[in-house]
């Protein structure tokens, strides 16, 4: 093309126009009719997706949430309506150029089985014509980011990875060209529950640094509450039953459909809304392995505590020590109770509560991403958190009532 602004350069700047918090993607009357079907799969969907947020599309199966998502990168071409991205209508530009600037993660992952992990991650940089050095550096960086040491994993083939590792590669591949927008279609749906929780937490931590604009589809309301900054609850035909923050949806469901969909146990679900880092942890009595045993004993005797948490050189929790353990002559690492029940700061209070109930000590040890000790959480902390949360939502809700969202949208 001879135009000064080729589609590529236009899209390359995708996201630079929009300040954080403003609408990054706008869906206008987006409609999909499949041939031979009487009712449209997606019927005039209108939605504004703010920059830097995770917006979750959730709804019963067959409601059109996946179709809606796949219209954004035009894997499914809309029958009518518009997609405005960063102020530009992308409904009719070259879809391949568009897709190179939008990360795409699907449930079945779809890694290319015939090429190595590193080459999989390098797909979009190669399409964009990056030079080899830049691509290699980026691939290694990303594998590191998703927790797969590049030296170990770069040269492997997808079949040599576990399901969880594959999805990490899937995420790395989607992030490769640093796209401002990510589309994720049930990305953690096919992964076992334990790995899923870990991947969700890791992804949230990643997102807190990256601040991508993310559309995330799931059928699981719990995952929606956990992952979403905002949730669009969709009913059949992709009609929006409610589009709001998780807090709002849990405390103030807009209608019976939302209420039914959210289901019982809304209070417990709200525990998934608060992260451990948002709660002030209690300080424990700690000692490290490189300290003198007499010094540890002295601190223990002076305190009111019945146990001391022993940390290793990197301040990672090792054992719970009681008085008798400190007085025994055996090495400290061999006595006492192993410190289990650790939660990362990124985990939700629900995760923390679960750990507490499972662990023997009745407390959860909060650690940072390197596993270093940050503090303790106990059941009282969680109850306090629930109470503050309730007050805060009530306040939020009162404030929200004052501004009519319809009127604001019209202005």
């Amino acid at each position, binding site marked *: 093309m001879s135009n000064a602004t080729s589609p590529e350069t236009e899209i390359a700047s995708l996201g630079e126009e929009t300040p954080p918090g403003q609408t990054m993607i706008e869906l206008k009357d987006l409609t999909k009719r499949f041939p031979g079907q009487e009712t449209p799969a997606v019927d005039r969907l209108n939605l504004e997706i703010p920059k830097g947020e995770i917006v979750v599309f959730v709804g019963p199966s067959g409601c059109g949430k996946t179709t809606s998502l796949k219209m954004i*990168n035009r*894997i499914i071409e809309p029958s009518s309506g518009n997609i405005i991205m960063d102020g530009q209508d992308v409904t009719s530009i070259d*879809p*391949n*150029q*568009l*897709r*190179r*600037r*939008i990360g*795409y993660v*699907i*449930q*079945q*992952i*779809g*890694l*290319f*089985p*015939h*090429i*190595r992990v590193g080459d999989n991650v390098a*797909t*979009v940089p190669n*399409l964009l014509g990056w030079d080899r050095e830049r691509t290699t550096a980026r691939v290694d960086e990303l594998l590191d980011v998703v927790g797969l040491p590049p030296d170990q994993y770069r040269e492997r*083939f*997808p*079949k040599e990875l576990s399901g969880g590792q594959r999805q990490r590669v*899937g995420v790395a*591949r989607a992030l490769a060209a640093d796209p401002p927008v990510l*589309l994720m279609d049930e990305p953690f749906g096919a992964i076992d529950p334990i790995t899923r929780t870990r991947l969700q937490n890791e992804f949230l931590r990643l997102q807190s640094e990256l601040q991508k604009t993310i559309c995330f589809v799931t059928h699981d309301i719990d995952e929606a509450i956990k992952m979403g900054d905002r949730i669009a609850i969709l009913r059949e035909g992709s009609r929006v039953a409610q589009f709001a923050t998780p807090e709002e949806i849990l405390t103030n469901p807009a209608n019976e459909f939302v209420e039914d969909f959210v289901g019982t146990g809304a209070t417990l679900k709200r525990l998934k809304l608060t992260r451990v880092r948002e709660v002030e942890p209690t300080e424990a009595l700690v000692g490290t392995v490189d300290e003198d045993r007499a010094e540890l004993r002295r601190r223990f005797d002076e305190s009111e505590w019945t146990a001391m948490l022993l940390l290793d050189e990197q301040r990672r929790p090792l054992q719970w020590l009681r008085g008798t353990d400190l007085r025994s002559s055996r090495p400290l690492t061999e006595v006492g109770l192993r410190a289990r029940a650790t939660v990362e700061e990124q985990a939700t209070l629900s995760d923390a509560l679960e750990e507490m109930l499972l662990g023997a000590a009745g407390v959860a040890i909060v650690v940072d991403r390197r596993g270093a000790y940050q503090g303790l959480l106990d059941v009282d902390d969680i109850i306090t958190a629930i109470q503050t949360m309730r007050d805060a939502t009530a306040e939020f809700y009162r404030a929200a009532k004052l501004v009519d969202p319809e009127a604001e949208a019209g202005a």
Partner: protein
Amino acid sequence: MAFFTEYLADPSTQRELLSQTAEHIYLTAVPVLIAVILGLGLGITAHRSPQLRSPILSVVSTFLTIPSLALFALLIPIVGIGATPAIIALTLYALLPIVRNTVSGLFSVDRAVVESAKGMGMSATMRLWKIELPNAWPVMLAGVRVATLLTVGIAAIAALVGGPGLGQEIFTGIRRIPAAGSLESLLGGTVAIVLLAILFDLLYLAIGRLTIPRGIRE
């Protein structure tokens, strides 16, 4: 087996068998190569277009229904006697396994893999060459292998209507049954063709080793 070793020891037999083997290789390799090129195109088309799929597959399998002697003979008035009618007929025969396996190979590629390639902005041509064909390749190669086996065997019949190849030695034997020396010729031609088939099979084993990406090898 003494009679057979005697037959093989004869220099004129050796010359004959060697040149016929060379002809037979030519008579197999050329049709298979042409069929690979045509079959790839037809297979990709049949995979892409649901309307053309069934016509393509039924025409191609109709070829294989026509007995080889008849097809060779049908071509003689058009292209003359010799290697040409055999090469055309054998190409038509080799098409079915190649087209069928190209289609099923392409269908065997995980849809999620193709969709993610699309989602990353690969054009249709790129998806075909970089994703779909490499992943369909093991199945396609198996089709080429079957096509080759088929061709090696059927090529023998070309000799009945003046074609080259090891069929000539068999035909010589047939005409002399039950005279002395006929069994030698029958065995000589047949065994040479079987050995050729085995060699081709080994060749495909090697090609598979070299060309099937490690990530999708069994």
